[in-house]
């Protein structure tokens, strides 16, 4: 019997594609952000409000993933920026190959920011690197404040937590301080923002976060 040491990542093939995507994003100075959350936390709504606040000449695009339907793409297309729906047909996450395929139609040199709206799911998307600069996790105040403890893998990997629907705080038992503490216990360095897309509260801070991230991307040196 021969034991063969493998010592490789199980998702080797996805990792290879993700590294290639990351190199392409860096070479073209594109800030790629991977938005993840449970279904219904407000990823599409946050993107709608974000796109609505951009000037038409901004170089922004969105890839949005769902198991079925083109509904999200239709919602996002109204703002005049390039949008593509990725229908996974039952697959519970986006993977590197899906992103690579979708990007085939676009020139990265024409983009400054690429948003990827992942499939609503706090489990599986955490295992698949898409070449993004950061994962952003959304948690709405109509969910439980213990989500970071229940789904630690995702909250551990995301660099920013956006607490959404904060206009509903007076009507729900959500303990926002506990939510923050839970997120930080899983990921001490996590940045946290609070946003309501209905009232616009917190949108300025979110847009400032984007601008700051975008500025740092421009200064990144490309690893070859």
């Amino acid at each position, binding site marked *: *019997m*021969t*034991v*063969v*040491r*493998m*010592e*490789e*990542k*199980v*998702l*080797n*093939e996805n990792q290879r594609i993700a590294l290639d995507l990351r190199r392409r994003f860096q070479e073209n100075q594109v800030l790629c952000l991977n938005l993840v959350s449970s279904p219904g936390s407000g990823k599409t709504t946050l993107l709608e409000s974000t796109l609505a606040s951009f000037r038409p000449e901004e170089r922004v695009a969105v890839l949005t993933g769902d198991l079925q339907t083109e509904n999200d793409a239709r919602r996002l297309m109204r703002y005049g920026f390039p949008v593509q729906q990725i229908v996974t047909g039952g*697959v*519970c*996450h986006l993977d590197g190959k899906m992103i690579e395929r979708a990007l085939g139609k676009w020139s990265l040199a024409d983009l400054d920011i690429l948003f990827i709206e992942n499939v609503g*799911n706090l*489990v*599986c998307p*955490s*295992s698949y690197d898409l070449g993004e600069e950061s994962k952003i996790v959304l948690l709405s105040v109509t969910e439980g404040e213990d989500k970071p*403890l229940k789904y*630690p*893998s*995702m909250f*551990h*990997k995301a660099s920013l937590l956006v607490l959404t629907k904060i206009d509903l705080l007076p009507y729900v038992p959500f303990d926002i301080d506990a939510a923050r503490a839970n997120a930080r*216990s*899983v990921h*001490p360095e996590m940045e946290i923002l609070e946003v309501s897309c209905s009232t616009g509260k917190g949108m300025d801070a979110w847009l400032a976060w984007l601008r700051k991230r975008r500025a740092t991307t421009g200064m990144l040196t490309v690893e070859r």
Partner: protein
Amino acid sequence: MHEVGIASSILEASLAETARRPGARLVSIGVRVGVLSGVDADALQFAFECLVADTDERNVAFSVETCPRVNRCEQCGHEFDSPSNAPFTDAPCPQCQCRQTRFVSGDQLDLKFIEVEEP
């Protein structure tokens, strides 16, 4: 939820390595799964068994090593496993009680080894 896809990636890589050795037969597979990998060890085991059930690989042994979250204390440098009753959160350093700790590992999803029988 996505353990079937992961099990099939593991099987694929193992069979590819076996195929590089003329006449070899795959006997066992060893993987390493961290508590923060987003993959459940039992579900992965179950997915693998279902995947190979009616194939030539049905007798391949599949072993999963579960890895804890490991943190390093910023003050005294001590490396420690997070307690099993709170495997995901940042526990204080058991040596100096300092709360400034840094994540070291716990998100592994690795194919460790395969065992093959060669002619």
